[in-house]
């Protein structure tokens, strides 16, 4: 354990040619934290993670891993990171066991036994060639090697993508265990439910900028709540009750209300509508996502 944050992005900016993909991104992650990066495709999540492991060198700003500058001393930074890329193109002629051992062999404190146990728990055949495995199985190998690397920081790009629900639960449980042991987990994901269940904090990226970050529950509370209404007859927006901070979306018989008021107060205001059904979407990251990205996410 050090006095440094486990991961620190300090005003990172990066562009691919004329296209700016990261703009002044700053984020501190303390040891033992689990942080999820959320954003639509092209938001800059993978690029940000790659700046930690030396695959890209940011045009401006610095990324630090346990106090080590990831650009200036990339090797030392990478020794502290167990990294799982989103890409599952692997050395197809190797068996899953030999690939795992190869992947972790460069780390100072690899834990092959942990990796092999994980492969077994996730149902990956150890002696089968990688070429014979499905996309989901390859994802499990990539995950297992990142955990088995033994480094204090685990960085995962889309770790739950293509996993079945049982494997997803196992992966989440394993990451919680790792965080309990003091390891830091930073991952990108589109799986908002997973992020909500797992993360201490979430950061939302939009067009290369962090537009919101904080504890999942706080973010959901900030964004407000959603009520989905189904009406017996069609109404237009002018016929709907309006209050400060209320936003209506929808048409005819189906409307969604975004609000920040106590539920009783809202119900009192909408009581005169020809209600056929009403559903309260409890504050969730999905709502935050919808609010932040709107049409971007589609």
């Amino acid at each position, binding site marked *: 354990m050090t006095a440094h944050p486990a991961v620190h992005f300090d005003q990172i900016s990066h562009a691919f040619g004329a296209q700016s993909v990261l703009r002044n991104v700053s984020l501190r992650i303390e040891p033992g934290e689990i942080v999820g990066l959320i954003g639509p495709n092209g938001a800059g999540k993978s690029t940000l993670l*790659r700046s930690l*492991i*030396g*695959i*890209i060198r940011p045009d401006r700003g610095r990324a630090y891993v346990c106090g080590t500058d990831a650009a200036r001393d990339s*090797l030392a930074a*990478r*020794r502290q*990171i167990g*990294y799982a*890329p989103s*890409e599952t*193109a*692997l*050395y*197809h*002629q*190797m068996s899953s066991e030999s690939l795992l051992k*190869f*992947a972790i*062999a*460069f*780390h*100072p404190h690899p834990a092959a036994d942990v990796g092999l146990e994980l492969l077994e728990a996730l149902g990956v055949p150890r002696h089968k060639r990688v070429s014979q495995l499905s996309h989901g199985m390859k994802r499990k190998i*990539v995950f297992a090697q990142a955990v088995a690397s033994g480094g204090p920081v685990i960085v995962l790009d889309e770790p739950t993508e293509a996993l079945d629900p049982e494997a997803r639960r196992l992966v989440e449980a394993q990451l919680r265990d790792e965080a309990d042991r003091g390891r830091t987990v930073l991952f990108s994901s589109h799986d908002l439910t997973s992020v909500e269940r797992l993360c201490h904090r979430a950061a939302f990226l939009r067009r290369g900028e962090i537009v919101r970050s904080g504890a999942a529950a706080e973010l959901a509370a900030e964004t407000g709540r959603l009520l989905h209404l189904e009406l017996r007859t069609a109404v237009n927006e002018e016929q709907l009750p309006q209050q400060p901070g209320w936003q209506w979306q929808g048409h005819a018989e189906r409307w969604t209300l975004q609000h920040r008021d106590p539920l009783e107060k809202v119900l009192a205001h909408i009581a005169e509508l020809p209600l056929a059904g009403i559903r309260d979407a409890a504050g969730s990251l999905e709502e935050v996502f919808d609010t932040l990205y709107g049409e971007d996410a589609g």
Partner: protein
Amino acid sequence: MMVLARQYARGLLWLTIGYFAILEAAMVAAILYWPKFRDNTPALAKLIPFQALQDLLTAVQQSGYWPYFAIQQWFKGCSLFGVAAIAFMGSGIIAREADQRTAEFLFSRPVSRRTVLRVRSLVLLLAVVLPVYLSSISAIWISPLVDERLPWRATLLASTYMACFLAMLVAATVLLSVLSTHQLRAGVIVVGIVLLSFAQYLIQGIDQWSLFATIDVWTFMKIGAGEFPLVRSGCFVAAALAMLFAAEMRLERRVW
């Protein structure tokens, strides 16, 4: 380092064995053909249209088995099959990682790109030159079958000279592979350059500028006479090191 070397060597193993088997088979066939060739050399010389190849036959007529073996084993065998092996095995040394999208996985490991390149280049070099030494040494034992003998010292020196030449081609291939995103492209360029150089060797007047002029029969005749071309070998090695250095620099900056 050993993990990297093992992983890369495992991928080259069967190709290296195949390359050695072809080299050995061609060499044995050439040795066994020697008595017939020796008896028909004057007639063969008349049939060859290229001056450069006629000169090779003249050398064989004058000096016998050593130039014949040098042409068959080093000038023809090692350069032809060696180049094929280098193009086939070496073109993928880095370009394959881009081709198969494994670059991010490999280069996110805590190992420097320089180390990856050096270890792989060394393994590739061994895969290319060890068969040259092994088949040349085996020729020392096979030659008595046709009542000829090959001197150990000259055979080893000639193999070493050929190894230096191949090392230069290995380094050129490594550099091309680092610059390429497709293994096939790098391989085709290597083979193309070598074929052009061979075509150049067959054209009188510009033949002395061909790569093959540096490994022709006259060079091996000198080695057989005890004159090892130290300067030229040094140039091969220096060129190889310069190209490897350039490849390292390029790889360090390459974005995946």
